[in-house]
Each structure stands twice: as C-alpha cells, then as structure tokens.
C-alpha cells in the first residue's frame, strides 16, 4: 500500500558557510570560461578555419610546396639533435644537483634558469656575436671553412640555448624529493653505479622525464626569435616551420601561412594530449 507523500516541501539545505553562493560560483565559472574561449580556444580554431577557408586545394598546395617540405625536415632535424642533448644534460645535472651536496649549488641552479629569463632574440644575437662573420671567432671559423651562423649548427645552438632548462627543471625537484635511499640500497645489494642509474633512478623519474622531453620538443620545434636571428632566412635551406610561416605571411598569401601553421598547431595539440596522458599515468601509479 502506498502512503501518500507528505505535501510539505523539504526545508532547503542551508549553504555551507565555506562555500560561495551558487550564483557567484557560476558567474566566476562563466567569466573564466568566456575569457579562456575567446583568448585560447578561438585563436587555435581560427588557424584551421583560415587554412581551409578556400578548401583542400590551396591547403594541399601550401603543404606540399618543396620549401615547406624542407622546412619540415629541418624542424625535425633540429629537434632530433637538440632534445637528446638536453636530455643527457638534464639527467646529468639533476643527478649531480639532487643527489650530492656541493658549494655553489644555488648559483648553479640560477645559471641553469638563465635561458628562461633572457629574450630569445638576445640569445640569437649572442651566437651571432660569437660565431658570425665579424664575431669573436668569425675569422678563425672562416679560415677553417666552418659555417655556423646562417647554417644548421647556428640554428641548433640557438635552439639548445632556449630549451636548455626544460628537462633539468622537471627532473631536479622530482629527484630531490626521492632522496638517495633507493640508490643506496641498490648499491649495497651489489649493483654497479650505471645499473643503479638505469634500473632504479630513471624508472622512478620516467613520467617527469617524458614530460620534460615533450615540453622541450614543443619549444625546439616552435622557436622563432632565436632561430630567426641566426638562420638568415634562406628558403629551402635554413627556414624552419615557424620561419616559413613568417615568410608566407609577408608574401600576403591568405591561406598558405595558416596551412603551414596547422602543422605546428597539430604539434601543440599532440603535446597537450601526451601531457594529459602522462598526468593520468603518474596519478594512476601514485
């Protein structure tokens, strides 16, 4: 038998005094959401909208242009040299800084951070002044027929400079937090130093290491200022993808710069997807 429901409405649950009024909450969410959509989402969607504004034809033409092809190759080549070098440095620096005590550690950390606070164009200028035609080492390099500025080595050096701290900065706090107990246990059990490093230390920092690698890679492939200063903008030779976008933009082509930019936008999207995956994995393990 069904009892009739009481007709008196339940008294409303009082709002907890440590929570905002729901109207305030939704207002804040709306303001933040609108700001993020206008400033972050709209520009990225616009890249694709402009690239396909005239359909597939012009898009395909811009992507398959031989100069774009060589820019893609150069961009990958620069990242393929830069990222492994900075990973080796990051592992060495974090091992030395997190596992050992020595005088001047704070100063070393400040020096490692320097590339973050130096403008990329100033970094590019530094390499021009060092290796360029009338740079400090210019005469010596010319006499030995070594070309660094306006060539691949200059682009690689400038990119290494701007991406220098990424991997080290990710690894140092993680390794510091883990201390040295596990490594000491491995050594006591007879593992060699190298085995300890590969089998104990590297696996325990792997998510942080991968995160550092994808950030370093995204910056290496997308760097503009430092590379522009040292590259000399030679189409088909020293143009990376961001420089190619700039060149097409200056030619007032309505589609081509956006078409090339979609490649870099896909890189950014892929970077964010990997980042989400890494966060999910590391939370899973914690």
């Amino acid at each position, binding site marked *: 038998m069904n009892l009739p429901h009481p007709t008196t409405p339940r008294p409303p649950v009082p709002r907890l*005094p*440590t*929570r905002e009024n729901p109207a305030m909450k939704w207002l*804040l969410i709306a303001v*933040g*959401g609108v*700001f*993020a959509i206008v400033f*972050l*989402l709209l520009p990225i969607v*616009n890249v694709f909208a*402009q690239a396909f504004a005239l359909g597939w034809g012009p898009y395909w033409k811009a992507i398959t242009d031989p100069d774009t092809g060589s820019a893609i190759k150069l961009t990958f080549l620069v990242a393929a040299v830069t990222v492994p070098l900075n990973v080796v*440095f990051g592992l060495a*620096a974090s*091992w*030395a800084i997190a*596992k*050992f*005590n*020595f005088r001047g550690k704070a100063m070393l950390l*400040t020096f*490692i951070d*320097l590339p973050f*606070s*130096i*403008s*990329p*164009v100033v*970094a590019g*200028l*530094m390499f021009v*002044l*060092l290796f360029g035609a*009338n*740079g400090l080492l210019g005469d010596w390099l010319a006499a030995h027929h070594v070309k660094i500025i306006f060539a691949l080595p200059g682009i690689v*050096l400038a990119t290494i*400079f701007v991406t*220098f701290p990424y991997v080290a900065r990710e690894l140092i*706090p993680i390794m*510091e*937090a883990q*201390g040295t107990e596990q490594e000491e246990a491995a*050594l006591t059990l007879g593992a060699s130093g190298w085995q300890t490093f590969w089998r104990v230390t590297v696996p325990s920092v792997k998510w942080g290491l991968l995160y550092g690698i994808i950030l370093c890679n*995204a910056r290496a492939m*997308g760097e*503009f*200022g430092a590379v*522009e200063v040292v590259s000399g903008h030679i189409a088909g030779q020293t143009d990376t*993808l*961001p*420089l190619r*976008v700039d060149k097409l*933009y200056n030619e007032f082509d309505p589609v081509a*710069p*956006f078409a090339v*930019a979609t490649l*870099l936008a896909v*890189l950014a*999207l892929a970077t*964010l997807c990997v980042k989400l995956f890494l966060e999910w994995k590391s939370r899973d393990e914690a």
Partner: protein
Amino acid sequence: MTRSAGPGVEEAVAWTQEDRPPDGGQRHSPLPGGKLTLGFTVFYLSVIVLLPIAALLLRACRLSWTELWELATNERALAAYELSLGASLIAALINAAFGSLLAWVLVRYTFPGRRLLDSLIDFPFALPTAVAGLTLANVFSEHGWLGRFLVPMGIQGAFSRLGVVIALTFVGLPFSVRTLQPILEDLDRSVEEAAACLGAGRFRTFVSVIGPTLFPTILTGFGLSFARALGEYGSIKFISGNLPQTEIAPVLMVVRLDQYDYTGAIAVALVLMLFSFALLFALNWTQAWASKFQKP
C-alpha cells in the same frame, strides 16, 4: 617552470643538513658519478649558456661607451622600452586577475568541461608563438571573427598597441594560472572554516583570510608572466604590423641587427638583459617571501 618544490623536498634538505659534520665540511655521498655529472653539467652550461653571454659582454666592452649609451637611450629606443614595459605590465596585470580567477575556478569548483578548460590553459606553452601571433592578428583584424564586431566599435585589436598587449597576455597566461593552482590546492580549508565560525561572510573571508595568503604567489605569477612578456618577440612580429608606434624593444633589436647595426643591437640587448636580471632578482626575492607563507 617555477621552483615548485615537491612535498618531500624540505625533509630531504633537512636530512642532508643534519648529517653534515659539525665542522661544516661536506658529507661524502655514497653514490657514484658525482664528479662526472657535475663536471659535464658545468661544461655544457659553460659552452651553451655562459660562453655566448660572455661573448655579448666582451663585444660590448670593446665598443665606445658614449656611442653605446647614445644608441641605448635615443628617442626610438626609449619609446621601445616604454612600450615593452607598459604593454608587459598591462598584460601581466590582466593575467594576474584572470589567471587567479581561472585557478580558483579550476581548483574549487566541479562543472562540465573543467578538464577541457584545464587543458586549454597550457595552449600558450605548447603553441609556437609565431602561430599565436599569426592567428591572433587574424582574429582581431577587420574581417576576423572578433575584429568584425570590434573594429566598427573603434577597437583595433591587430596592428596596434592593443594588439601587442593581447599577444603578451596570451603568452603569459599559463604562468599565473599554473603558479597559483598547486598553492590553492594545498590551502588549508580549516582556516576558512574558522573564519566562518567566527562569523565572517564569504566575501570577508576572501578579503581578509584567503587573499592575503595567496598574494605572494599571485605576485610570483605576475612576475613570471611579466618576464615572459618582456622578452617576447615571435607573436609580436605578426600582430604589431611593423609600425613605428608598436615597436617593442626585442623588435628594435632585430631591426637594428638586420641593418648590420651591431652596436645598436648590442645596446638594446644589454638593456633587455639588465631588465631580465633585475626581474630575476626580484622574482627570487618574491619566491623566498612567498614560501614563508606556505609553512604552517
């Protein structure tokens, strides 16, 4: 990018300091490879970072100081610093306001699309600045998605000083959100409960309890996005339209270098370095101050 030390760091540091012999000498670590890795670190750092910086300073020393001073402080250069500092300051203030709001919304509320919003924040880190400048200039231009409404109202968001501020806001936004987010997550909620028990309303709690606690961190985020904006070049090259009134200091440096005016470029570069070192110093100080507030 900030020196966000994990929860275990304080213990680790305390442990190593306690174990140090009383004479202040170094405790010998049982792990191998310390000298090797430290040696490699210092070598790589010297070649990649310190040598180029030394090259810039050496070249600057060889130039005549009067000429350098003239080129660093002529009218065009002063206008460029003024715009660089002014636009970066406005962008960093916008980021401090909206970045704090976004961090608050992301940490405190659950709502549909929260994860998506959280991922969006990282876009400026992942997207090459050239692409950011290209697309922002298009969105705010006369026929762009926002420009078609804003330009008739007299708001020129592209090829203008406002455009410079827009681009600098874009590149700096993640710094203020990501600096504040972890601190906000760790914030002790019992202080808010205490404030509520003592009769404070939500607004009063925010102004007198939460706000002052978070202020040093918000200031750190402000400093980081200001520093990022001050050195930014890629996006500005696209959105500034190469006009005299939108020339920021990094653009002036490149323009001078393109004209083979090495002395002029070095003069601007030195001033930019001076700005960034002053800011680095201020940031270290702010972070040290901020970390005091997080200890119970």
